[in-house]
């Protein structure tokens, strides 16, 4: 277990030394949400109607923007092959990498969401579900993104390929999450949608590490 925690700790130290990786997605997310308030001529009703969509799309794009940090530098400096060949379980190491990436780029976004919800006139009755849906949904985005990144690591020009590969798999998350938020904002019970999101998380947690390890080996070979 120690080696896995060490990886997590090492990644958090690295993130702390390279703060731009930490703040870029956050800044992007905050800018996107605030620009919408300007661009939609501040019509309160319309904003509050689309606010959950803006927040979720912002979180999704921010996640896509930062996914490269997950393996790219480890791939380029050779750390990746070292930990794939170490006597540890590679799937657990992938999980730790994704966890550290989510802690650095996913969690801060969730933490500033309440603030943005106020700016965007989001109906406060749905705030709990909005945050909950982000808590369940953004790890799924990170996990699925890890597969796409692992597949495209070895390619020289993978710029547009990664979003094209990954976005179709992001859409179900977006649909269910947004649906849950809309229902709860209008006073309904969103537990069905949230359960569905939870099921996606469980599926992603169990299956993506295996796939990622396989794809990483393809990229390294």
């Amino acid at each position, binding site marked *: 277990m120690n080696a896995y925690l*060490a990886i997590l700790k090492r990644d958090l*130290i690295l993130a702390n030394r390279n703060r731009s990786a930490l703040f870029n997605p956050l800044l992007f997310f905050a800018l996107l949400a605030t620009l919408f308030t300007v661009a939609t001529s501040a019509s309160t009703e319309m904003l509050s109607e689309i606010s959950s969509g803006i927040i979720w799309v912002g979180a999704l794009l921010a996640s896509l923007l930062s996914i490269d940090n997950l393996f790219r530098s480890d791939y380029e400096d*050779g750390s990746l092959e070292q930990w794939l060949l170490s006597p540890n379980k590679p799937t657990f190491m992938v999980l730790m990498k994704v966890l550290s990436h989510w802690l650095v780029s996913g969690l801060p976004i969730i933490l500033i969401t309440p603030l943005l919800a106020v700016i965007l006139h989001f109906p406060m009755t749905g705030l709990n579900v909005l945050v909950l849906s982000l808590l369940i949904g953004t790890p799924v985005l990170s996990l699925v993104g890890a597969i796409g990144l692992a597949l495209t690591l070895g390619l020289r020009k993978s710029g547009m390929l990664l979003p094209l590969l990954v976005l179709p798999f992001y859409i179900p998350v977006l649909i269910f999450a947004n649906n849950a938020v809309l229902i709860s904002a209008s006073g309904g019970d969103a537990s069905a949608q949230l359960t569905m999101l939870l099921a996606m998380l469980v599926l992603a947690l169990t299956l993506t590490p295996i796939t990622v390890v396989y794809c990483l080996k393809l990229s390294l070979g």
Partner: protein
Amino acid sequence: MTNDQRLCLEVEQLSCARNNKTLFEDLNFSLHSGEIMIVEGNNGSGKTTLLKLLCGLRSPDQGTIKFNHQEIDDLAREYNDQLLYLSHKNGVKADLTARENLNSFCQLYGQPAEFVDEVLVKMELVNEADISCRFLSEGQNRRVALARLLLSPAPIWILDEPLTALDEAGVELVKKLLHLKLQREGMIIISSHHDLNIDEGIGMQRINLTPSLLTSVA
């Protein structure tokens, strides 16, 4: 080390192609504890590819690689346990100091970090120990990477051009480590353009991957 603990790596009829070009075909050899295999060949002749195959990062197009009579694909982590691979890439984090890098190697191998200071002395990195590796020279970064040889308990070393970027003292140090490893019944597979001064007496094999010269001399 008793006889049944001897390590044995067998390669049978190994073939590999890359970008539709056959790099090598029908490669056969076997290597035991206390033996060294030197992989030679022109640039692009497939040395790195062969080493990647041997550590299981790549699957062969044909043929098998067996460790102690079991295919390495089936062994997976059990084989990784026995293996230390050093590639062209150092695997050193530029944002961490030399000491932090060494500590993280220890954690990766599940080894206590108590020898890190000693290893820093041996690799002549004491004065640079707490400087971020970003500010170290290429050769010093190579030394940080090579510190793995001292920190990992693995009996098999697969080294891809370990001497590049090293100064004379560094080259001598690595040669000394290689000799020591062989005396301790380790197994080494190495590609290098340097003369390694290995005595012919101790089980040494050379393999040359340059297409017209593809021979294996035991």
